[in-house]
């Protein structure tokens, strides 16, 4: 079990190899890619930042929870920070298990909880409007 914040390119092939197990019959991976649009606005690229020590701690808690809740053999999650271009991988989650139910459910749990709880922030650069911190609506005029 590994939760990692990295500023290097995410390489799914080598990550996948680390969670291969002879007892596993099912492997589910999730990749979050930088899209070319969000909410209808064309996106140029984006930047992720993180409060790394807390992010990795909270991430490990999420992986432990997944292991308690679902019958899985191995799980890992890597989230990238820094500037990303369209089509690059922002986050990768891999889970192996004896059966596919657990692999699907645990993978979904890990990505949902990671998005909801881990201190990572996304700033999107648009083609036609100023960059924005996603989720941080600025309510105060001025």
């Amino acid at each position, binding site marked *: 079990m590994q939760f990692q914040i990295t500023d290097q390119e995410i390489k799914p092939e080598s990550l996948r190899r680390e969670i291969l197990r002879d007892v596993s019959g099912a492997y589910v991976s999730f990749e*979050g890619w930088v899209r070319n649009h969000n909410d209808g606005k064309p996106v140029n690229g984006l930047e*992720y*930042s*993180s*409060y790394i*020590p*807390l992010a990795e*701690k*909270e991430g490990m808690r999420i992986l432990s929870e997944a292991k308690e809740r679902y019958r899985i053999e191995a799980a890992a999650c890597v*989230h990238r920070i820094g500037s990303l271009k369209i089509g690059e991988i*922002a*986050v990768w989650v891999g889970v192996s298990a004896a059966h596919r139910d657990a692999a699907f459910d645990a993978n979904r749990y890990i*990505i949902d909880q*990671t*998005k*909801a*709880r*881990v*201190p*990572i*922030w*996304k*700033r999107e650069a648009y083609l036609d409007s100023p960059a924005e*911190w*996603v*989720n*941080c609506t*600025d*309510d*105060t005029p*001025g």
Partner: protein
Amino acid sequence: MKIQIEYFALLKEQRGASIETIETKAATPEILYSDLKRQYTFSLEPSALKVAVNEDFANWNHSLEDGDTVVFIPPVAGG
């Protein structure tokens, strides 16, 4: 007492700095944020934030001690 504060995302942008050490009498993160919000006109309400003390999540009424590191966590958006 001295408190170290790290800023991330929108707070870092609005503060214009990522880290600072301040001298404060704020007994809790709640009071501390209220002071900083006024001083730097942060747009985020405390209800939108979480707080971490010394690299772990904490309550808003956690008792701050000299030398603590405090981070206010804007709404996260990983993935």
